[in-house]
């Protein structure tokens, strides 16, 4: 199997997707000339993509292709790994989040992350949701905070189940509930973008379905970028698709185009289940 990616393979489809997209696309995030390294090892190579506003973008590809790495560059989580660094730019609404004078905590407020395994903070349910709000001092008094907590728990679909026991420890919830709690917690700081790193892979099918449904509802208000390793999930959720292979973007474009008429040989192979 020819694993060498030719230069000529790469540019035309991406360029085509880009030009097709930029004609009609409202770009929320733009990634320019992004290279990412873990020490000496290069994980992302020359990534240039655009992510549309208020749609669900799915990043997919075989394991090890760099999709999680790419996702982490979007909320500046990559730098949490010792020895990781990037060159290039990531522009959110045309502001580079890696610029020198940028406050990284503000970036993370605007770009939220839903992790793969639910990690409730070691506090009560109420305190989990209110955590971010307190940090950013978003409201004036307890009453306002309480209302906000209720609001976000409702959006996450948890209010009915936990409304009466807000002060129970968050660890007493089931895994599916915990993930929804993490969703509420993330939404509570009012991000514009929600990132999901395989957000349902640790959940049972019913909870997974529920989280997927919420994400689809949320796209009316938020730009959503999800990494998934399941082709089926990608097909269910995606409005826009980025397909990655060995650290490079092999193909990017609107979902129905990529799924029905993949331009690149690798994409075709993946879609046909050769991985």
């Amino acid at each position, binding site marked *: 199997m020819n694993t060498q990616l030719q230069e000529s393979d790469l540019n035309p489809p991406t360029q085509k997707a880009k030009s097709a997209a930029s004609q009609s696309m409202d770009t929320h995030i733009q990634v320019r000339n992004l290279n990412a390294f873990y020490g000496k090892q290069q994980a992302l190579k020359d990534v240039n993509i655009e992510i549309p506003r208020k749609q669900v973008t799915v990043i997919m590809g075989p394991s090890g292709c760099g999709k999680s790495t790419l996702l982490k560059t979007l909320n500046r989580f990559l730098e949490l790994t010792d020895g990781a660094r990037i060159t290039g730019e990531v522009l959110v609404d045309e*502001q580079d*989040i890696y610029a020198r*004078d*940028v*406050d990284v905590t*503000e*970036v993370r407020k605007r770009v939220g992350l839903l992790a793969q395994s639910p990690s409730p903070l070691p506090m009560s349910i109420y305190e989990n949701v209110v955590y971010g709000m307190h940090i950013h001092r978003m409201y004036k008094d307890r009453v306002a905070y309480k209302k906000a907590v209720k609001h976000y728990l409702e959006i996450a679909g948890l209010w009915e189940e936990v409304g009466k026991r807000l002060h129970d420890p968050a660890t007493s919830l089931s895994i599916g509930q915990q993930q929804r709690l993490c969703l509420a917690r993330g939404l509570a700081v009012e991000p514009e973008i929600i990132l999901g790193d395989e957000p349902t892979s640790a959940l049972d099918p019913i909870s997974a379905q529920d989280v997927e449904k919420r994400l689809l509802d949320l796209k009316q208000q938020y730009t959503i970028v999800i990494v998934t390793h399941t082709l089926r999930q990608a097909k269910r959720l995606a409005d826009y698709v980025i397909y990655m292979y060995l650290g490079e973007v092999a193909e990017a474009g609107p979902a129905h185009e990529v799924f029905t008429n993949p331009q690149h040989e690798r994409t075709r192979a993946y879609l046909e289940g050769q991985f």
Partner: protein
Amino acid sequence: MKKHWRRRHIVEAFFKGLMLVSFIVVAGALGLILWTILVKGLPALTWDMVTQAPQGGFYLGKGGGVLNAILGSLYLAGGGTLLALIFSLPIALYLKTYLGDSNWGQYVRLSLDVLWGIPTIVYGVFGFTIMLAIGLRASLLAGIVVLSLVELPIMVRAMDEVIRRMPVDLEQAALALGSTKLEVAMRIVTRQMLPGIITAILLALGRGIGDAASVMFTAGYTDRIPTSLMQPTASLPLAVFFQLGTPYPKVQQRGYASALILTIIVLIISIGSRWISARLNKYTVK
């Protein structure tokens, strides 16, 4: 998203600074200690100091050196470490092979931690009391036995730390070939864990050489180089202590030099153990 100096950033910068300063203070303390000993000890560190035993009037300022203490310490710590090793290795291997995380294993580990925490002066007093009871006089042998008590928990703990990390597959591979558990322990664990075991031994050795309180009453003190196990013997820590206790500046200077000698020995052991374990790690399974 421009940076505004919000309160949370100021607080973070403050605490981060505090942490950095703390780290520098701790690291600096090491430098300060080594520097002080070096500066004060070097002037009086002569060839005589290292090659001669005290001559008459040594503690009044006359000639001689601390060879009695250097050799005494090496004999004491060497013997003590050897004796401790004889018991430590079986305990560590038994812990790994049979006890694992069982309740009994937890009790044994707890007792070892407790033993580790007992101050060396208590071991010294204990040893001395037993010595009196059986009619033994202050001697090299008594010092060795007490030092081995002091070193035992240090050695076992260090070995245990290392042995616990052994990859399970290695052990299972050996068992699958039909070895008994003893054979696995003796042949495979020791070979795999050799660097760690050697590090543990050297660690205990280093502590043994430096301890004064345990050998104070049990090994006695003498100006002669010991020639038999039943003779009392000097030790470097005590040599330092006694020389510093005199009112003569010249003798005190020699005390500083003796402290420098002791420090150098301990540094050699410490750095040496790192080097050896780095070398031996070539043969281990990662």
